[in-house]
């Protein structure tokens, strides 16, 4: 397996979806190529950082004290208005 194939298969491997034959070739390359080993670890870390940079609950809580009342009132008023046919 070349480094290029390795990189192409990386996400599928990390998701545990690489078929067995390919997985064996992938892991053999991983054992022999420190470059790809390092590359995959930094890929994995970048994915983890991307996932953690937004905490959905925390984002909502941060905003909860900053929602302008006029926006809430505009939304509620829009519901009360009859919709055009």
């Amino acid at each position, binding site marked *: 397996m070349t480094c290029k194939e*390795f990189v192409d298969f990386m996400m599928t491997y990390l998701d545990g979806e690489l078929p067995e034959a390919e997985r064996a070739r992938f892991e053999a390359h991983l054992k022999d190529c420190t*470059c790809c080993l390092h590359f995959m670890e930094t890929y994995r870390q*970048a994915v983890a950082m991307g996932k953690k*940079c*937004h905490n*959905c609950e925390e*984002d*909502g809580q941060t905003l909860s004290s900053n929602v302008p009342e006029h926006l809430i009132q505009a939304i509620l008023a829009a519901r009360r208005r009859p919709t055009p046919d």
Partner: protein
Amino acid sequence: MAPVATNLPAESGAAGDWKIDQPGFAQRLRAGEGAAFELLVREQTPRLMAVIGRLLGQDSDTSDALQDTFMRIFQNIEQFAGEARLSTWIHRIAVNSALMKLRKQSRRDEVSIDQLLPAFDGHGKLRYEHLSPWKSPETVTDLVLRREMKQQVRRQIDRLPENYRTVLILRDIEELDTEETARLLEIQPGAVKTRLHRARLALRALLEPLLQGDEP
């Protein structure tokens, strides 16, 4: 306007302990109860603003897409089948409204994807120089818990080309599955997987200085 999804997986979407998910709440909305609508708007506005903001990018104006989201909820509440949580259903409507707004928005300052993908020599050998050992998972977690670091990572995500940034946010942050992401973006599931992998590779390149110990 894209149709509102009615067949969502029951447990998809970020879980929360919302009043709107209590039994009978959707029925109060269907019956047109004003107090129920007000509770819905007050409880869900911060969360939906956050969802829309993540998709439109930092410092974006979320109010148009937010108002569109609630209009669609009000107009389509009869279609809510109750198979998913109400909070999951309205999360999808907010994502859809944000995506529609995104399509109309002018393009941001973004980096070409080709500059961010790994390079190989003629034999398929990776051209990559790693200068230091990678950080431990604990170090990465500690780093990203710091507020200023979160901002830096978000800024790098915002630099991704739009097609890739959107897929990364829907899959890795909003936690939608491949099929639902494909449906919302009107592309094939295989294209979602390809874009996600390329988006992650590009993000890796953008975060590399940070992962190597320098600032991005």
